[in-house]
């Protein structure tokens, strides 16, 4: 019988840009992967029990009514001793993941930067643009409690932020994204092939690509296509480009660009426009601008797909909205809360996709299940981290 434990960190694919880990560095991630699984699966349900057995009754006694908003529940749960301890443990797990990742990367930064230069220098497939400003929604806090976020540099031209992001995905997902942390992108390729067996997109745009772990499998899955992966963060792009080169995927260009302004591309330039767990890192004003640009550059008949965690609809219980909101307040994802309260179908309609052309599908990471765990949504789900998403999509009406 296979035990229900995450695979060891050493099961990850050691691609040419992957930071090397010592025995103990890998063991730290093994501990964190196990701890996260325990916090989500074994202790996570305790939050609901605390809510049902004591927090909700106390709220009713105090207010003479039921909670009306997830923030009512949040305020009440933040006084509950079980929830406090659970949240504190989870926060520490995130911080320890960052600390371990940064120790691994920064102690070998000379080697990593040198390696990246070998892959990056003189290649037209990496385009950095110093005029791209860090958007205010990125500068507000360091996303995911990553010191320096995606864009911070330890020294000019480095790859530290990208490398740290790559090594740590394992710990947060317990290996649920597979050997190259690319199970999400692989799932999209599989879905597109099944949905449109003979579809051959010529140009694909991935907005907010970070290190390309979602865009690279799409490029590999559609080798005839030209993939453009954009992000505002240079260190992530430097690492991502070098990583793609190391993996031998060449039909992908990494470009420093803000998705709110795609003016470099003419209308209808792309057959597929993709974002993956990205929209929640924007802001209320930025998101509609980005969605409108994504619509404009998409060709008639083309595909748009936004992968996210499920939106908070009116029929989602308030408690579930509250627990799904944890990352907004505890993992430096401040737009997460209001973004998930937006009806993304409305937002896409405003961007130009009629309701009739839209669809929502469930997407589960595709991994080698002989080694890596299959991700499931449900009782023990690590909300916000499970490799199970909702894809909000549309095929743009042909002109």
């Amino acid at each position, binding site marked *: 019988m*296979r*035990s229900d*434990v*995450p*695979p*060891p960190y*050493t*099961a990850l694919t050691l691609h040419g840009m992957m930071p090397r880990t*010592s*025995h*103990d560095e890998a*063991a*730290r991630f*093994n*501990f964190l992967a*196990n*701890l996260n*699984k*325990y916090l989500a699966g*074994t*202790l996570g*349900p*305790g939050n609901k*029990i*605390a809510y049902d*057995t004591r927090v909700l009754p106390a709220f009713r006694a105090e207010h003479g009514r039921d909670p009306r908003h997830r923030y009512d529940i949040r305020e009440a749960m933040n006084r509950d001793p*079980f929830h*406090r*301890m659970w*949240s*504190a*443990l989870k*926060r*520490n797990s995130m*911080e*320890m993941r*960052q*600390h371990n990742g*940064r*120790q691994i990367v*920064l*102690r070998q*930064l000379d080697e990593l*930067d040198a390696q990246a230069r070998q892959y990056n220098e003189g290649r037209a497939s990496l385009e950095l643009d110093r005029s791209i400003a860090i958007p205010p929604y990125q500068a507000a*806090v*360091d996303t995911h*409690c*990553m*010191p*320096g*976020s995606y864009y*911070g*540099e*330890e*020294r*000019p*031209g480095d790859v530290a932020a990208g490398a740290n992001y790559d090594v740590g995905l394992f710990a947060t997902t317990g290996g649920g994204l597979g050997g190259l942390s690319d199970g999400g992108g692989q799932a999209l390729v599989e879905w597109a092939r099944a949905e449109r067996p003979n579809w051959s997109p010529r140009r694909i745009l991935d907005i907010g690509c970070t290190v390309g772990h979602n865009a690279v499998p799409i490029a590999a899955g559609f080798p005839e296509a030209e993939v453009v992966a954009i992000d505002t963060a240079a260190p992530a792009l430097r690492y991502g480009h070098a990583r793609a080169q190391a993996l031998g995927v060449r039909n992908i260009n990494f470009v420093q660009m803000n998705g709110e302004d795609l003016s470099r591309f003419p209308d209808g330039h792309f057959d597929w426009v993709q974002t993956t767990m990205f929209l929640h890192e924007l802001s209320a004003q930025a998101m509609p601008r980005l969605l409108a640009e994504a619509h404009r550059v998409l060709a008639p008949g083309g595909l748009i797909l936004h992968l996210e965690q499920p939106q908070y609809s009116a029929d989602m219980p308030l408690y579930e909205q509250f627990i799904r909101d944890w990352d907004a307040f*505890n993992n*430096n994802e*401040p737009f997460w809360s209001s973004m998930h309260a937006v009806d993304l179908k409305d937002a896409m309609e405003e961007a130009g996709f009629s309701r009739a052309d839209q669809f929502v599908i469930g997407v589960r990471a595709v991994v080698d299940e002989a080694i890596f765990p299959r991700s499931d949504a449900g009782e023990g789900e690590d909300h916000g981290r499970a490799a199970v998403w909702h894809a909000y999509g549309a095929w743009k009406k042909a002109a």
Partner: protein
Amino acid sequence: MSAKGDPDAPVDWIARAGARAKGRRPDYFDDPALDRLLSMLMALVGEVSVLRERFDTVERLLEAGAVLDRSAIEDYAPDRAAGDERGLATKAYIARIMRALQQELEAMEAPDPPVMHWVEELAKR
């Protein structure tokens, strides 16, 4: 602090790895000392797990008849069965550390009256 201008500037990796992420950290407990102590405790809990895993590696290498050198330890990657055994040991270790919370969860599910209740009840029966 981060070096300005020089792409080859040395980085104090130990100091910089521990940099704080921008964004105010939530207070989880009324006494900030508890927040700090829990962080220290969990770092220690993690390190004990790492030590145990390292010891397991040494045992497996010795068992396989290797002449032990440090690079063999650093390069060790468990196969499927060994990885599973080690994962299971880590899972059991975490369950021992987290017993108090797991039992608090059980107590919430099936609450008991104070023991005095039974002291008085059994004195009557």
